[in-house]
C-alpha cells in the first residue's frame, strides 16, 4: 500500500496545521535558543500538590472516578468559583471535570452545535477554537479585535458578524496570545447583543487568576447571563499543572448533562491522580498560587518596559503571561521577524498570525521565563529591530 493520506477524512485533511506546531519544528532544529515561545508556567507544580498525588497513589487511588469527577473536587470547585467569580454552581449537576479545558471546549462545541451553526470567535485567539468548531461540524466566524482597543471585543464588531446561524460566542479572556482582558463594562456592553440574538457563551477562563491590577470578571456573573454561559477553567496555568490535564466546565445542568454524555463515551473520566492533586491545589495551594501570580507580574513589567526601551510598541497586557508587541515598524511580516530573530539572534517567539489574521504584524512573547532570559532576549530583539529599521 502506498500513501494512506486518501484514507484520512476530508474534514481532518482540510484542517490547517497549527502555526505554533510549524514554528516548534523550526525551533527544535536550533540549539541554545532562548525561548519566549512557551505557553505554560515556568514553575513546576508546587511540591505539596505533587506530594498529595504520591500519597494518593500509595493508598491505591488508581481507579476510575464517576464520569463527572470526584465529588470532593466538584465541591471544592463550586466554592472556588463562588469566591472567584461570584457565581453559584451545583457540584452535583452543574460541574463536570474534564481532561483540561481542551476537552471541555471540544465536548461543549460537540454538545451544542448542529452542522452549519456558527461560532463567533474573537481574533486573534488560541489556535484550537476554529479547528475544534470545524471538527464539531460548526463554522468558525472570526470577530476582529484591534490593538487600538487593547484587543478587547467591541460590541459593534460582534454585531457585525452575527447571522441567523450564529449560536455560540467563544470568549477567552485573559487572552492567549494578546494578554488582553475584558473589564466589567466591556462585558456589560456585549450582554444585550448576546441575549437579543439568543447566543450561548463559552468562556475559557484558564488564565483568569493571572489578572494583574484588578480582579477577573466573568461574563457569567452578569445579570441574565448565568444560564446561557458555560465557564471553562482548570488548573494548568494558575496552579502550574499543565501536564496533569485537569479542567472543568460549570454551567446549566442541561448543558453539563449533554457534555457528560459525550465525556462518558469518549473519555470515561479525567485521571484520578490529577483529580486528587487538584483537590490539594484548591484546599491548600491558593496562597502559593498568588505568589506565582505576583512573580509573573514582576516579569510582565520587566518585559513590557524592556520592549518600550528598545522601541517596540506594546500595549499593556493586563492578564495571562504574554506580551504581544507590534513589529510593524520593522517592515517585516510576523513570520519573517520570528525567523530572523531565531536564525540571527537565537531567540524564539511565536508569530502573531499563528493566532489568526488579526495577529499579523505582532509576535507573542511569553514572560514565564527567567529574569536573565527575558532581559537577554529583549536585548537581542532590540539588536534586530535596530538592524531592520536601519535598512
Amino acid at each position, binding site marked *: 500500500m502506498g500513501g494512506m493520506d486518501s484514507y484520512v477524512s476530508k474534514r481532518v485533511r482540510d484542517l490547517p496545521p497549527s502555526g505554533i506546531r510549524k*514554528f*516548534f519544528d523550526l525551533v527544535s532544529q536550533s540549539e541554545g535558543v532562548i525561548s519566549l515561545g*512557551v505557553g505554560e508556567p515556568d514553575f513546576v507544580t508546587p511540591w505539596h500538590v505533587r506530594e498529595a498525588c504520591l500519597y494518593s497513589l500509595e493508598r491505591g487511588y488508581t481507579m476510575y472516578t464517576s464520569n463527572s469527577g470526584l465529588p470532593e473536587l466538584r465541591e471544592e470547585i463550586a466554592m472556588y468559583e463562588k469566591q472567584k467569580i461570584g457565581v453559584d454552581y451545583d457540584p452535583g449537576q452543574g460541574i463536570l471535570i474534564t481532561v483540561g479545558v481542551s476537552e471541555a471546549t471540544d465536548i461543549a462545541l460537540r454538545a451544542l452545535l448542529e452542522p452549519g451553526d456558527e461560532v463567533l470567535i474573537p481574533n486573534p485567539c488560541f489556535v484550537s477554537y476554529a479547528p475544534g468548531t470545524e471538527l464539531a461540524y460548526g463554522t468558525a466566524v472570526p470577530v476582529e479585535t484591534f490593538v487600538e482597543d487593547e484587543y478587547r471585543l467591541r460590541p459593534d464588531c460582534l454585531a457585525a458578524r452575527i447571522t441567523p446561524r450564529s449560536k455560540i460566542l467563544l470568549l477567552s479572556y485573559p487572552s492567549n496570545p494578546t494578554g488582553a482582558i475584558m473589564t466589567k463594562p466591556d462585558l456589560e456592553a456585549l450582554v444585550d447583543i448576546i441575549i437579543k440574538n439568543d447566543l450561548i457563551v463559552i468562556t475559557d477562563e484558564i488564565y483568569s487568576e493571572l489578572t494583574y491590577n484588578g480582579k477577573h470578571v466573568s461574563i457569567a456573573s452578569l445579570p441574565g447571563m448565568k444560564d446561557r454561559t458555560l465557564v471553562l477553567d482548570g488548573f494548568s496555568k494558575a496552579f502550574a499543572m499543565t501536564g496533569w490535564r485537569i479542567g472543568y466546565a460549570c454551567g446549566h445542568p442541561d448543558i453539563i448533562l449533554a457534555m457528560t454524555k459525550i465525556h462518558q463515551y469518549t473519555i470515561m473520566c479525567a485521571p484520578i491522580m490529577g483529580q486528587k492533586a487538584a483537590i490539594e491545589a484548591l484546599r491548600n495551594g491558593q496562597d502559593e498560587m498568588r505568589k506565582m501570580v505576583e512573580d509573573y507580574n514582576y516579569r510582565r513589567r520587566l518585559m513590557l*518596559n524592556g520592549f518600550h526601551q528598545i522601541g517596540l510598541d506594546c500595549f499593556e497586557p493586563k492578564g495571562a503571561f504574554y506580551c504581544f508587541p507590534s513589529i510593524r515598524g520593522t517592515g517585516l511580516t510576523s513570520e519573517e521577524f520570528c525567523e530572523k530573530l531565531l536564525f540571527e539572534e537565537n531567540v524564539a517567539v511565536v508569530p502573531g498570525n499563528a493566532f489568526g489574521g488579526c495577529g499579523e504584524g505582532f509576535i507573542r512573547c511569553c514572560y514565564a521565563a527567567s529574569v536573565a532570559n527575558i532581559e537577554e532576549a529583549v536585548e537581542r530583539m532590540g539588536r534586530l529591530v535596530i538592524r531592520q529599521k536601519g535598512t
Partner: protein
Amino acid sequence: MELKVRILELLERDARVSTKTLANMLDENEEVIAKAIEEMEKDKIILGYGTIINWENVGVDEVSAMIDVKVTPEREKGFNAIAERIQHFPEVRCVYLMSGTYDLSVVVGGRTMKEVARFVSHKLSTLEHVQSTVTHFVLKRYKQDNFIFGEAEVDKRLVVS
C-alpha cells in the same frame, strides 16, 4: 515601605540583580530604586550581600556544626550578653536564641572537624555562663537559603507550545 519590601524580596532571591532590572520589574525609575537601597543599607535593613557556595563542588573541605548551648542568663542582660560574646568569634556563622530544651543555637564552621571540635572545647564551652554544649556535625547539605544543592533543575518544557 511597600516598595522597599518588594525590593528586598527580589534582592533576597538574587543579590546581583541590577537597579535597572529592579526598576523595570517594579515600574519605578532607577534613581528611586537606588535611593531606596542606599537608605536600607544605611538603616542596617540590608546588612550585606553574600554568595551561596557549594564548597563540595569546588573540592574544598568545609565542615560545619550546629551546637546546642545551655547558658545561665545574666541579671538585667538576659541572654544577650552571652550571645554577643559568642557572635564575635569568626568561627561562628549564626547565633539564635531558641525556645525549648536549650537556649542558644550556634552554627560553627571550619576547615576540618578537628578545628570545629577544638573551637567548641576550648572557646565555647569554657565561656563563663555556658553550662553545657551538644555538638551536631552537618553530614550533608541539601538545601540552604532556598537553594537546592543537588542537580540544577533544567527547563523540561517544550520550546514552543
